[in-house]
């Protein structure tokens, strides 16, 4: 990586902005179809009623909430990579920081849609916002659901501003190497950035503060999401371990998604000289760590249920491994803890097919983890007469397809229209290495 010159870095990244092939547009069309499927399902639900989904009493939170937590989780590693690793001066994050930050912004957008979808009467969404109104009705700031509104909207705003701030010097590079309409657009977007000394002086300082502020924010956001559950009295939810457990799980799934996106990106855009095998290996090592933390959290939940001697709690965890949703538990244990342990072996860590496969497996497992937590808890709460089962209905599958399509569509559009690797940070890496 240190052998690259500044010009080569610019050229490699700018080459990715060349006019896309027919295959790219075909993929875009397929994803647009997916988004339209999701939108149509949501529209059908709005006109027909929330009952078209599989939610019921007692399982009132179905895949909409699972997907919400899943996407918030995916969003976390972007901030981990761009902010926390920036504070630790981990140089290996530079090639993947931009794509990870972008992933964060798009994942929060997808996550933010689900409370709207789950709301049913979406036109009443403004009740979640503290707007002055004639009836003097205000959100209840004692409710974890309102904590969530505050935390997620803060996270979306902060991560979008962080992302754009990081982009500005690179937008100037594109402006300086383009002509015509693209030049005019990037001239406006880059805010007239010239890399003047006073700009860099304040930019470096401001970026550092961004990183310092985003770090506690990222930890708080998934903690707040976990309190949606932990502050309820439902067995399997009401536990103090949820905040660190959710944060570790979020970073675990987010890092896996980074690999899922980076590996094809590296191949398609010929980023091998920039996103080196060492970078991917470092992500894999971090996944081993987060996987072990997640495994410890799974084990601790069972231990505490047993140690508490609380019959309802014990029953809940007994049903987690033997009940109707036991398959979900085995998926999550296998995919999130046991399979990632294979990354301890160097040969697995340095094999692209293995890395890509394991990243997909973790994404799958983390979705099931949220299923087990969200559905399993309320399906078997205190009294057997109120137990119930849940299975997603076609409308929910459609919305899920729509959210995944939206995420990949936005990422695909980003890759071809904005610099997907930070040229400035890569040049800094080269400069320090040289």
């Amino acid at each position: 990586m240190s052998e690259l010159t500044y010009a080569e870095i610019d050229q490699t990244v700018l080459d990715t902005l060349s006019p896309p092939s027919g295959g790219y547009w075909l993929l875009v069309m397929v994803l647009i179809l997916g988004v339209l499927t999701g939108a149509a399902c949501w529209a059908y639900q709005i006109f027909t009623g929330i009952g078209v989904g599989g939610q019921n009493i007692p399982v009132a939170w179905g895949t909409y909430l699972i997907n919400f937590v899943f996407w918030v989780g995916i969003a976390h590693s972007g901030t981990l990579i761009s902010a926390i690793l920036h504070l630790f001066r981990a140089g290996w994050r530079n090639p993947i920081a931009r794509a990870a930050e972008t992933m964060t912004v798009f994942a929060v957008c997808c996550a933010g849609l689900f409370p709207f979808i789950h709301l049913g009467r979406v036109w009443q969404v403004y009740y979640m916002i503290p707007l002055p109104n004639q009836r003097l009705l205000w959100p209840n700031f004692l409710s974890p659901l309102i904590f969530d509104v505050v935390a997620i909207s803060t996270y979306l705003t902060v991560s979008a501003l962080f992302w754009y701030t990081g982009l500005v010097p690179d937008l100037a590079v594109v402006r300086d190497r383009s002509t015509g309409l693209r030049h005019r657009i990037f001239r406006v977007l880059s805010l007239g950035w010239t890399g003047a000394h006073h700009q860099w002086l304040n930019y470096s300082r401001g970026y550092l503060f961004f990183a310092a502020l985003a770090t506690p924010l990222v930890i708080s956001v998934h903690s707040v999401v976990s309190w949606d559950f932990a502050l309820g009295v439902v067995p399997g939810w009401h536990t103090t371990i949820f905040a660190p457990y959710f944060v570790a799980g979020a970073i675990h799934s987010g890092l896996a998604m980074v690999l899922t996106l980076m590996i094809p990106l590296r191949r398609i855009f010929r980023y091998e000289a920039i996103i080196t095998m060492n970078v991917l290996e470092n992500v894999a090592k971090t996944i081993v760590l987060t996987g072990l933390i997640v495994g410890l959290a799974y084990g601790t939940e069972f231990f505490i249920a047993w140690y508490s001697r609380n019959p309802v709690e014990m029953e809940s965890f007994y049903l987690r491994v033997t009940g109707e949703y036991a398959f979900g538990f085995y998926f999550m244990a296998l995919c999130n803890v046991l399979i990632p342990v294979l990354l301890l072996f160097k040969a697995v860590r340095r094999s692209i097919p293995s890395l890509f496969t394991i990243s997909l497996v973790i994404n799958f497992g983390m979705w099931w983890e949220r299923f087990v937590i969200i559905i399993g808890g309320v399906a078997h709460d205190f009294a057997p007469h109120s137990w119930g089962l849940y299975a997603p209905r076609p409308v929910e599958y459609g919305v899920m397809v729509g959210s995944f399509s939206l995420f990949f569509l936005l990422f695909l559009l980003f890759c071809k229209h904005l610099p997907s690797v930070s040229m400035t940070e890569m040049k800094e890496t080269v400069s320090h290495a040289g």
Partner: protein
Amino acid sequence: MPADTQLLGLFKDEAKAARAIQELAPAGFQFRRAHSPIPSHRILEVLKLTKGPVGWFTLAGGIIGFFTGFALAIFTAVQWNLIVSGKPIVSLIPFFIVGFEFTILFSVFGNVVGLLVCSRLPDYRGLETYDPRCSGEHFGVLAACDTGRKGELMDFFQKKGGEVRVFE
């Protein structure tokens, strides 16, 4: 006599650019700006610049946000004085979460405002005396002199190992 000609010295080497900046004033030329593709600590050292004032904006934003978050939660709670789940009307511990999130949010707003104000962005007029190579691999030093000394300044930059671009 006012300096009315601006010349941009373009250097491929950061150290040469820093040396040129250092020697501009003793040679009787006015230093205007330095451009670089990356944050250059060497240039900032020569200019004796250590920290930008952005942090003060961030701090101000954070303080405003902290009190705004608490004030919003308390204000809305006392509108109805309704006890929910047996908790006090003004419950500081849950309200701390709102205060914390607002602290971060407003700190970031302060940070962005500070960044824009201190970096004087957006600044499209700055592009008039700028060379696109400065975002690639060149370090630019913009200096000014009287029209009569234009040749001297050109020689100065060339002797320091740079290319020269003139802005009349």
